[in-house]
């Protein structure tokens, strides 16, 4: 199939349509609004449900209702809207119904701005609202990856009866890239509906879907069931990408678009003689901790780069478990770190490392190569 140029938000919407999404509920918020608008245009054409809710509270609870019917459904929002959705997400996780949610993160806290950010990492990976709930969270670094993630998210949500989040930043939503769209899948048939779905108690006992469980033992059992599913996810779904880690003695760790910018930074630092590799978590929950732990045993130092004040950093430190020094470089408020500044941080990390005095491998060339404009940032 030929590649076409797609804007991230619209590409994700089209991917969901092709995956057979039957209902979309949302509320406008920059920088994800084009996803909602695309759904507003395209869903009715295919006889599917689009509804603009009165708020993100409304949207997430409409999603909750649709999901209780065993319907393939999704919503999308950006950070402030996601904050409002967390109540519903906790209920959805507690009720064990599948939904897909796209979060196109923007700068915070508060109203913040509409620039790209990774400030929702804690919000999406640590807990979905109250209680012990987690989502399967994917962090795309390109529009193609975002498309593939959305396309596969429904099957995963249904398999594990969980929330699947595509956690992108404003760049993923807004930039245009060549994309190969996956083939169109037919929507679920009545026979394919799950055996817990509320479809009317015709010729069978009624079904109940609730997150309420008043006895401590009962709720503990429900939690254990949820945790067992999350353990399955941890076992089966952890994904990451590595670049030039084989000979690396320094390691960049970054997710999403920052992971991609780090690829350019890596090339700059390599040109300058640093043997640096890149580790990019593709699932940020579950976090690819085991592989990172292994790599930490091989490198002299680790640099974590994020567009926040150091959120994934905690997961990195836990995975590294003291095997290597971990440094953090973060930009805030929607400022995007550029390859050359990251490469400088690599050099500064290398210079700070204890021991025999680290020298770049290339003959005598200290410091960093001149600034090279990066395609990833321009895109």
């Amino acid at each position: 199939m030929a590649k076409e140029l797609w804007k991230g938000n619209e590409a994700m919407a089209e991917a969901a349509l092709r995956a057979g999404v039957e209902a979309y509920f949302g509320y406008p918020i920059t920088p994800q609004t084009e996803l909602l608008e695309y759904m507003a245009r395209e869903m009715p054409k295919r006889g599917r449900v689009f509804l603009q809710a009165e708020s993100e509270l409304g949207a997430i609870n409409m999603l909750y209702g649709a999901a209780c019917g065993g319907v393939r459904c999704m919503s999308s929002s950006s950070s402030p809207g996601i904050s409002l959705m967390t109540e519903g997400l906790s209920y959805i996780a507690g009720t064990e119904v599948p939904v897909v949610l796209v979060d196109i993160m923007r700068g915070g806290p508060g109203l913040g701005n509409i620039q790209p950010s990774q400030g929702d990492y804690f919000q999406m990976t640590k807990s979905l609202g109250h209680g012990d709930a987690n989502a399967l969270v994917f962090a795309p670094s390109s529009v193609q990856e975002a498309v593939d993630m959305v396309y596969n998210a429904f099957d995963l949500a249904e398999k594990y009866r969980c929330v699947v989040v595509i956690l992108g930043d404003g760049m993923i939503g807004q930039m245009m890239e060549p994309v190969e769209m996956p083939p169109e899948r037919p929507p679920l048939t009545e026979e394919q509906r799950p055996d817990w779905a509320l479809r009317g108690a015709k010729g069978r006992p009624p079904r109940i879907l609730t997150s309420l469980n008043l006895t401590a033992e009962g709720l503990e059992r429900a939690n254990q069931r949820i945790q067992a599913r999350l353990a399955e996810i941890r076992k089966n779904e952890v994904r990451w990408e590595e670049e030039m880690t084989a000979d690396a003695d320094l390691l960049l760790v970054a997710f999403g678009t920052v992971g991609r910018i780090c690829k350019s930074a890596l090339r700059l630092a390599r040109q300058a003689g640093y043997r640096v590799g890149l580790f990019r978590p593709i699932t940020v929950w579950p976090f690819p901790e085991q592989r990172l732990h292994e790599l930490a045993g091989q490198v002299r130092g680790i640099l974590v780069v994020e567009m926040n004040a150091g959120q994934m950093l905690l997961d990195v430190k836990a995975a590294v478990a003291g095997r290597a020094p971990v440094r953090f470089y973060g930009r805030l408020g929607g400022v995007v770190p550029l390859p050359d500044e990251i490469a400088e941080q690599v050099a500064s990390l290398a210079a700070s490392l204890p021991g025999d005095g680290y020298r770049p491998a290339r003959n005598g060339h200290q410091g960093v190569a001149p600034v090279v404009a990066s395609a990833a940032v321009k895109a």
Partner: protein
Amino acid sequence: MSTDLSQYEVVYRRPEALTEVYTHYCPGCTHGLIHRLVAEAIDELGIRERTIAVAPVGCAVFAYNYFNVDGCEAPHGRAPAMATGLKRTQPDKIVFTYQGDGDLAAIGTNEIIHAALRGENLTVIFVNNANYGMTGGQMAPTTLAGMVTTSSPYGRDPHLAGYPMRVAELISVLPGAAYVVRRSVHDVANVNKTKAAIKTAFMVQMEGLGLSLVEVLSSCPTNWHMTPVEALRWIEDAMVPVFPLGDYKVAEAVVPLTKRTRAAR
């Protein structure tokens, strides 16, 4: 010695749309009675097998255990949004919410107003007992002026704590609402009227005419600190003057339905 039941006429039985369990409601509370009216309406309309109930957060949180239909439980106040998600994706189903006054008229005001505004084909059973029953009798938006609750211990002062909210009146002005009435269950005549209204409300949904909402004045003897009989009397004496019974919105297309339910009584 066994009795031959076949020679007797059954005049009263548990509706099929109610499960065979005891409810957890306090003695004298009229939630159970209202459940029965809803169940009778469902039976009479023959819609049990395609009905989905959305329970609230409040005393009726376990309503899904009592209605013999598919059911779920919404976050506090969000039942109309959840019901919207169900109904929009399964328009052939009959979806109703059953909500208290804290649920619908405080935390969930936005959800119900917009569901009504969109003319969602939902039926809303709105139980007004002038307080937050489940959490132990705090002030609700419907608490009467001067009424003592655990969170208005000196009596509700409207200047500080607002005025009682008249939900039926409020919803009735929204164009998407097709049928909005207020009823009470403080005596038999009113119970019968409530039943007819609930049945009409479901018929409105079956015909796809828009949102139907039946506000029911309901007793809470435990938190009102009254006997069940005193509580019923208090509905009539104290609540009805503030929350007048009546039909607040009967869309033109609904009028023939009300005639049918009235004739059937």
